[in-house]
């Protein structure tokens, strides 16, 4: 029986690129360019990728069969503001089991010499599905990690 649980979380990644917002944005808009940097062999092998880059359009990625399972990503583009912002939602599945549903926001800030890219992902992580090896590692680390996490949380508050 699957135990039902939801954990919400988010993370932010910022990068500064020595390229104009137009060029950085194009790397997300053009399917060939997008594949060039976003798909790679260490993520379950090169599989299928389709990108319909417009508001309401979909992007799908499906990895090649691998020992860890077949990963698939299905996205819908909610908002596309050229050279400024991309907002999309996506689900991640392993062997057709939904692992998470996320909202991703990519902001392109020009102005200086290059482009500052801010990627924010807000995710609902479903039913604690993880890889068996992660679970083993998790049980080894046990409560120490949780205690450490809680201590960390208390410091800034």
């Amino acid at each position: 029986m699957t135990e039902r649980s939801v954990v919400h979380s988010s993370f932010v990644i910022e990068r500064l690129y020595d390229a104009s917002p137009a060029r950085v944005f194009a790397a997300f808009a053009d399917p060939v360019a997008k594949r060039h940097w976003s798909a790679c062999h260490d993520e379950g092998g090169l599989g299928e990728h389709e990108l319909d880059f417009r508001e309401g359009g979909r992007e799908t990625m499906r990895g090649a069969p691998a020992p860890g399972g077949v990963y698939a990503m299905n996205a819908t583009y909610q908002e596309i503001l050229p050279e400024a912002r991309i907002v999309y939602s996506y689900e991640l599945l392993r062997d057709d089991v939904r692992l998470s549903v996320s909202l991703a926001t990519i902001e392109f800030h020009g102005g200086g010499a290059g482009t500052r890219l801010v990627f924010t992902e807000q995710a609902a992580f479903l039913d604690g599905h993880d890889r068996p090896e992660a679970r083993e590692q998790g049980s080894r680390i046990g409560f120490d990690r949780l205690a450490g996490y809680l201590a960390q949380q208390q410091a800034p508050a």
Partner: protein
Amino acid sequence: MFQALADPTRRLMVQRLCEGPASVSELAAPLAMTLSAVVQHLSVLEGAGLVRSQKVGRVRTCRIETQALRAAEHWISERRTLWERRFDRLGAYLAEQAEKPEEGNGI
């Protein structure tokens, strides 16, 4: 990071449960609040999959349920790493493009 743990009272409750299972009244004892407030905090923690409780007779016993938390923590760091690698490759791709702009998409 996790909404359910944003509240200091709930963090205290989770810390107490890290030491071992406890009844609702044991959890409430060190806290200056009503039992019903404690029950409300518990339901948030249960909703987030962090705590499980079981009623035996008239006593509800709570225990920590860390699997969801650990799995989520692992998943988040994996996602972050994946995106960091992707953005590294995007940087390399953009640099490559700048060197030979006449070659278009640069496969």
